[in-house]
Structures are given as structure tokens and as C-alpha cells.
């Protein structure tokens, strides 16, 4: 499973990547976290507010850093 974190490298993007990593670990998922920092790639997902979380090429969260519990719910839903 590939989890992408979109954002131009601000501290919120790092926070989101951390939360996503912890959520995947706690659920025992075999996931790789990929950071997408190129602005053209970010826009290709239709995202204007960063950081954003992309799972299975679908934008699931945008413009905020969600809580660990929320990311776990999103990941569990698949």
C-alpha cells in the first residue's frame, strides 16, 4: 500500500507524514509513505490546500493535519 503525503515541505507536511506512518504501523499495514513535494504533481491531484493525504490515488484528507485516530479510520476503510 502506498500512502502519499502532498505538500511543499512545510512542517505540517512532516507532521502529517509522521501521523500516517504511526497509523500504518499501529494497524500493522505494510505501507510505504511517499512525499510528493513537486507543485505540478500536487496540483495533478486537484489539491489546493496542503498538507493532503492520498491513499490509493484518492485524496482522502486535505488542508489539515488529522489526528492519529482519524488517519487510522481512513486507512482501515481502505
Amino acid at each position, binding site marked *: 500500500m502506498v500512502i502519499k503525503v502532498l*505538500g*511543499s515541505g*512545510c512542517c*505540517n507536511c512532516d507532521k502529517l507524514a509522521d501521523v500516517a506512518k504511526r497509523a500504518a504501523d499501529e494497524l500493522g499495514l505494510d505501507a510505504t509513505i511517499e512525499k510528493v513535494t513537486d*507543485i*505540478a504533481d*500536487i*496540483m*495533478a*491531484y*486537484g*489539491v*489546493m*490546500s*496542503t498538507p*493532503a493525504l492520498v491513499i490509493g490515488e484518492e*485524496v*482522502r*484528507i*486535505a*488542508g*489539515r*493535519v*488529522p*489526528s492519529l485516530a*482519524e488517519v487510522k479510520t481512513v486507512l482501515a476503510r481502505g
Partner: protein
Amino acid sequence: MDVFYPLEWLAGWLTFDLFGLERGSRLGEALAFFLYDVPKILLLLVVAVFVVSFVRSYLPPEKTKKYLTRGREWIGNVIGAAVGVVTPFCSCSAVPLFIGFVESGVPLGVTFSFLIASPLVDLVALSLITALFGWKIAAMYFVSGLMVAIIGGFILGRLNLEGEIEEYVWKIRMAEAASPEMTRADRARGAWSEVRTIVGRVWLYVIIGIAIGGLMHGYVPAEVLSRWAGPGNPLAVPVATAFGIPLYSSVAAVIPVAGVLVDKGVAIGAVIALLMATVGLSVPEFIILRKVMKPRLIAIFVGISFVTITITGYLFNWIAPALGA
């Protein structure tokens, strides 16, 4: 009765009864001010950030940008400024936001109205201003902030500055805007995490701002400030505006100082210009915008904002006494 009366009473009790300082003494007044303002501002900040973030979660830029393509001049600038007020926007999203607007055909002048209004007419700032200065000043701040955004964006739109945007911006293609679904609980949790982030980031600055305000309240004689920056000095407004640009601090930290400046006889227009320049124009924002704009455009943007904020300051000096605010 003032809802903050219990806090005021507690601050007075701590200062004058528990610590035994004398009423009317400089140290006593400064400390009472500090002990009253810190919990008051932090409490207001928590409530305001929560409510504003919750409501704003319904209006992400991915959804609101379609309204911005509807009008060009004036109407477009008005919509741009209005959307700027309600759309959540943090300066680290400035680049994707700007590109998203440009790409979907939002005119440059309208985009600028958005970019000026968004930090300037911040709803959290507005609620703090209401609490500390009263609703008349808050309403005037709101209206003049919108005017600055509308007029500034209009002028920038007229200057045909498309050539001053970095070329790569025009080449980016955006996918259909994604706005993931959220439940009400998600929004509430999101708003709460926003409270923790914002209050966690600014609480120290708030305390420093109030400490400075408290010291000024107790120690700076009113004659000094009103002589230098009172309504009698026409240069006070532009100087205050210029002073506000490099002053990049949280609005929650500046507002308590602004309140004391007004109490000490500084012209209201100069204080409002200082506030607007501090929250509306900041060097970190220019650095981020530099990724999409050429330096000349940033200079023009700053220049026009400076002029419109200064004019607004003069208007405040002129209107505020008439309204008895």
C-alpha cells in the same frame, strides 16, 4: 454585566489583596492588567479559533474557487475579498492556492483581492478586536479591510501584470478539484486540532504582547505617545504602516498592545494601520509568494497595499470620532 467580570475580579484580588500591591501604583496596575488580559485573550482565542475553523471547514478553496471566476472587475474583486474572509488559508498553501486560481481562470486582480483579504480580515482577529475595542471599531475594521482588498485587487488587476508571474505557473494543469468528505465529528476534531496548533504556536507571543501592553499601561505616560503619534501628527499613519510590515507577529499578540496604544492617546487610525500592516503584510508571506511571482510584482503588491492601508488609517482618524467609537 461584562462576561469577563470574574476574571477582572480575580486579577484584582490576586494583585491587590494577595500580593498586597497598592491600587493605582504603577506595578500594581501593570500586573492587574497582565493577570486579567492573559486568561481573557487566551480564552477568546480558543473559542474564536474553534468556531471559525469549524465553519470554515465547509468552505475549502477547492469549493469556493468556482465563485471567483464569475466576475471580473469590481464584482469579481468584491467576491474575491468576501471569499478570502471565509476560506481557510494558511500561508504554506499559498503556492498551490495561487496556481489553482490562475489555472481555473480566476483573474489576477480577483486573486489579489483574495490574497489581501484573507490574512487582513481574519475572523479570529475580528473577534479579538470586538472583545477589546467594541463592535464599532470591529465593524469599521471589517469594512475597511474589505475596502483595502477590493481596491488593492482592482488596481493590481488593472496593471496587467500577468507577465510578472513565473512562467511555469501557466503550464501547470490542475486535476478536478478534490474535496474529501468530512463528517461533522471530523470537522469538530479538525477545529479542535486547529485550536491546539494555533494556541500552541502563539500563546507565548500573546503573553509577551500582553506583558508589553501591561508595562506600557502602567509605566508609559500618555502624553509621550499622544504627542508623537496622536491625531495631531499626520505622519503617524504611514510610519505605523511601515513599522507593521516587518513586525510579523500573531494578531493575538498585537491586539493587546494596540488596545493600550489607543488608551494612551495614539490616533486610532495609526493603530489600525499598524494592525493591518502587521497581520496583512508579512515578509514570510512574500518569500512564499516569490515562488510564483517575480520580484517586481511582489514590490508592486506591497506598494499598493501600503498605500491603501495608509489611506484607510487616515479615514479611521476622520470617521472614528464622528461615530463616537
